[in-house]
């Protein structure tokens, strides 16, 4: 599978619909402090099935929903889509025959999260498995949040063993 695009709306500071193309090789994301770069990283982890609000730097999971600014009111819904190209047919069994896969997560205040794969409602666990079977996921070693690069080095030896399981 190839990741091709991230789409967000109402997610943290991205209140307007935003598309982030994910092309071949190296895509750089730049900008001043506080403009929303790490929010993009979190959107990727969130749609992959992250369950801990702390990983989203919030108190509760609803902290990912646009909270408003001095000039704009808060929103009630946040939605993120991750688009995958499966032309090679290498996706896990559940979606093996679909040329394009659209995985989305939507949260509404007071209602919790709803995941969909190509429009079909899906359980969080199945979405997490879909990514795990593609050697990735919200807690993958290859997803390194800001300030966390040293975490592997500072972790205890038994915590580090998990990376071997990921590599297996």
């Amino acid at each position: 599978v190839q990741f091709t695009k991230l789409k967000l709306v109402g997610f943290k500071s991205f209140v307007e619909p935003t598309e982030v193309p994910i092309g071949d090789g190296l895509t750089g994301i730049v900008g001043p402090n506080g403009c929303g770069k790490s929010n993009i990283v979190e959107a990727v982890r969130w749609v992959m099935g992250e369950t801990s609000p702390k990983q989203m730097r919030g108190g509760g999971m609803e902290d990912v929903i646009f909270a408003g600014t001095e000039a704009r009111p808060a929103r009630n819904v946040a939605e993120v889509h991750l688009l995958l190209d499966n032309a090679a047919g290498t996706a896990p069994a559940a979606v093996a025959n679909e040329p394009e896969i659209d995985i989305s997560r939507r949260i509404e205040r007071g209602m919790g999260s709803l995941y969909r794969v190509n429009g079909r409602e899906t359980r969080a666990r199945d979405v997490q498995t879909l990514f795990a079977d593609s050697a990735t996921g919200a807690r993958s070693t290859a997803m390194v949040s800001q300030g966390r690069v040293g975490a592997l080095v500072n972790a205890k030896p038994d915590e580090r063993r998990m990376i071997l399981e990921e590599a297996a």
Partner: protein
Amino acid sequence: GRERLLASFAVVDKHFQELFTRLFGGGSAHLKLIDSDDPLEAGLEIMASPPGKKLTTLSLLSGGEQALTALSLIFAVFLTNPAPICVLDEVDAPLDDANVDRFCTLLEEIAASTRTRFLIVTHHRMTMARMHRLFGVTMPERGISQLVSVDLGRAEELAGVAQAQAA
């Protein structure tokens, strides 16, 4: 179970040794299973010595050395079982220019040899210059993020002065 883990340990360790020496421009490092004979219970220890230095406990390594050691391990796991996407958020912040250069060279090689796609958040001009494409995130309206495709000149501006405009 055990065989799989041991096999994966051997491959990750081999990659780790190679990548450490490349990122540090010398020195040596390796992984070790400790605390138990059973790989399913054991801990993973990292033994690292930067060029010319004695093998030292990890905590004595400098901020930049720890980041490079961690990146060697991340990429070692990665090369063992390549993920379709890798996202790095300012991992080059503690690095000096020479290490940023080696880090970028390694990124370019991994990107060329695998189908993996990278999203790399950075403030370093040298890293920006090595990207295949650049997106800038700005807040033309305070508190509201917007994404724009940019060239290197504009990217350098964004990383630096956009905030000053908001002042």
